[in-house]
């Protein structure tokens, strides 16, 4: 008899843990989905003035990928039109049309999260190429001078090039070849020099324009160089000609030498880039990922249902926990409650009123209802009509409460919602019957027991960490079911029975 229940419980628990484990290990779900993470809010504001016919304004926008996820974006374009353009690796926002006479205010805003996992992978290694406008004979000369560097390993090549870019020929004792190289590169700016040198030693490189990833406001972007080192792009600071270890310190906007901001037949009279760092629950970040994924469990995820229904399921998923709690309190502790699920329903009702007001409203209405029920008892009413009188009374109380709440500005009094009237009506009737049959003391004990269970259930279902965890891993319900089965097979004494049968303990030994 005991075995199948135990087996079923363990099987449910095992299935649930297996599914959670599979999601975490194979699908990369967050272990602690409720933990907060940092997200960045990137914002561009500008005022565009038209100077000719059909002005255009192009802004390179942050793009998806390389450990960078855009959670949400919004665009302000005033009376102008907005289009999104893809250009190689860049996403470009294009504002077109006629700006207002005093300029047009435009804006772009996005929430970006950087993932720390090193899942960044470029499948095809890029090829090195020279910047535009370098003559072939010059390339031949430079390659001739740097020939011995090309034999070195990739990372050493980058270091050697950077060393030369920093100090020039003077850095290596005025080697004649290098002095010649210096002369050849005369006239190019630092970034172009670096790009030429890296191309000469077969290191793929690109220029990137963007902003530093730090809270604050800047009015301009700056360029840097990224060199391919085999595993990924390394960020090179053009000021110090050094490799900067983590690329997560910059927000790239435009990749490949294009300017991040371009205008035609217009000019920008004001521009600012603003970055702020915010805290956001991991599940929100995660939600974005799931909603773009094609994997089976991601497609069949609660995150995919329309957001207006998600809140309901966040609560529903925790109701089984409340039921488990009631099972525990009744069968193992020996609590008395009105009905089995009354406390759960009460807890759900408390969500809209809050705990203190909820308990107060419940106590007050049950007291009024009880007085009315005593009086009704003298009036020879049949069961069903009598219950309908109680329902009307309860709803009438709600209305009085709402009106009083409105008068005194207590929103909680108006937030009773639809659910509680059933619970209250039933509780009044149950309370009356228990008073009649078992006395006021038992009735009050049961009422306090129900309220206590309702409060604990309320605290559980309102606990966001739990809500999110169950929402991300709905299979945890199976776990709860397993525990419920185990409670159902607990045939030992209830804690209350230790008191009830205390006269049998250590009998006359």
């Amino acid at each position: 008899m005991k075995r199948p229940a135990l087996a079923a419980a363990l099987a449910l628990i095992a299935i649930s843990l297996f599914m959670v484990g599979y999601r975490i290990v194979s699908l990369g779900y967050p272990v602690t989905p409720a933990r907060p993470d940092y997200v960045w809010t990137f914002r561009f504001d500008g005022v565009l003035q038209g100077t000719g016919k059909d002005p255009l304004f192009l802004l390179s926008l942050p793009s998806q990928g390389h450990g960078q996820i855009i959670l949400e974006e919004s665009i302000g374009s005033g009376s102008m039109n907005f289009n999104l353009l893809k250009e190689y690796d860049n996403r470009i926002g294009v504002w077109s049309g006629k700006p207002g006479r005093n300029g047009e205010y435009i804006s772009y805003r996005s929430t970006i999260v950087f993932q720390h996992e090193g899942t960044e992978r470029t499948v095809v290694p890029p090829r090195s190429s020279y910047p535009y406008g370098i003559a072939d004979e010059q390339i031949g000369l430079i390659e001739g001078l740097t020939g011995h560097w090309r034999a070195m390993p990739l990372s050493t090549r980058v270091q050697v090039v950077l060393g030369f870019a920093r100090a020039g020929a003077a850095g290596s004792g005025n080697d004649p070849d290098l002095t010649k190289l210096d002369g050849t590169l005369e006239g190019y700016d630092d970034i172009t020099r670096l790009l030429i040198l890296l191309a000469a030693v077969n290191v793929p490189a690109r220029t990137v324009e963007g902003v530093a990833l730090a809270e604050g406001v800047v009015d301009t972007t700056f360029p840097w160089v990224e060199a391919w080192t085999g595993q990924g792009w390394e960020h090179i600071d053009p000021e110090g000609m050094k490799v900067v270890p983590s690329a997560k310190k910059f927000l790239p906007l435009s990749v490949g030498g294009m300017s991040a901001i371009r205008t035609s037949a217009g000019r920008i009279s004001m521009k600012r880039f603003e970055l702020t760092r915010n805290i956001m629950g991991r599940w929100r970040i995660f939600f974005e990922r799931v909603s773009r994924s094609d994997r089976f469990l991601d497609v069949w995820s609660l995150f995919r249902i329309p957001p207006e229904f998600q809140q309901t399921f966040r609560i529903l998923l925790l109701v089984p926990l409340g039921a488990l709690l009631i099972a525990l309190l009744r069968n193992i502790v020996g609590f008395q409650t009105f009905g089995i699920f009354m406390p759960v329903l009460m807890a759900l009702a408390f969500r809209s009123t809050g705990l203190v007001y909820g308990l107060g409203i419940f106590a007050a209405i049950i007291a009024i209802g009880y007085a009315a029920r005593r009086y009704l008892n003298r009036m020879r009413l049949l069961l069903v009509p009598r219950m309908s009188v109680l329902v009307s009374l309860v709803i009438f109380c709600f209305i009085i409460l709402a009106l009083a709440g409105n008068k005194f500005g207590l929103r909680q009094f108006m937030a009773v919602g639809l659910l509680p009237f059933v619970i209250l009506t039933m509780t009044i009737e149950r309370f009356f019957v228990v008073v009649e049959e078992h006395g006021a003391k038992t009735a009050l004990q049961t009422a306090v027991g129900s309220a206590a269970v309702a409060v604990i259930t309320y605290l559980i279902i309102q606990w966001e960490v739990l809500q999110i965890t169950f929402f991300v891993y709905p299979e945890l319900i199976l776990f709860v079911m397993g525990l419920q089965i185990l409670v159902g097979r607990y045939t030992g004494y209830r804690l209350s029975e230790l008191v009830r049968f205390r006269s049998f303990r250590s009998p006359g030994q």
Partner: protein
Amino acid sequence: MILHPFRELHEAGILGMNNRNAEVIMARNPRSRFPLVDNKVVTKELAALSDIPTPELYGVIAKHGEVRQFRSIINNRDSFALKPARGSGGSGIILVKEKRETDLITESGRTIAIADLRYHITDILSGVFSLEGQDDQAIIEALIHPDDVFAAVTYRGVPDIRVVVYRGVPIMSMVRLPTAASDGKANLHGGAIGAGIDLQSGLTITAVHRSTIVARHPDTGNPVCGIEVPHWKKILLMAARSLEMTGLGYIGADIVIDRYRGPLLLELNARPGLAIQMANRTGLLRRIQKVDQAPENIFATPENRVEWARQNL
């Protein structure tokens, strides 16, 4: 040790609520048989088939349209008991000891208008007192005239004898004695006294009142121990036959002793309470285990089972 109190109760052979529900009731009482004991009208009919005496039935009111028959049912009766057929814990019962022109006098001395009692009947029919609120029937039956044996330890009302029967073997018994606190009801959590009865001798042993051991009745002051229950063997036999009657393996039989008719089966309960253990200062679990170890042949007839119980428990 945290587990120590649990072990103590187990060693005392106490049956806990969870254990009773899961291992005894669920294992021994098929759900399909519950209606036989949940409805007193059905129980009465079954008892009649098994030649088990019950209080004389005056009438049953099953529909709201029949409520007006109430007057004709009680027409030539001076006293009667009005009960819901599915009532539990003694709720909804009204005992009428005297009838006047338009009023009725209850056992506890209250005066009720006959019209009010008709309202009470409609309440019963609407299921106010039934276990799950289903529609119910009202039973009108003969009032019990309690035997004088417990008169000295009874405050009003009717004392009744509860016999717990496991697999047809009476394993424990007590008499429930109404007190002023219980308002004349033989209801332990209403405040009645429970006095354990020795199965062998039929003598009352210890008594419990609201979970404390008492020697005397709180209202009359008379000792509750050592009273010999009359018709003891017959009572046990009536209880033991409830197995054949209902097919339920765990039952609480409530029996009253009428001055004129002797022991009468009042009702059967498929979920008898655990307080009887306190009244007997011993646990049900130990006796259940003993019955499970008993030789198979003792289960053949009610007589054998009673005999075995009186010798072995």
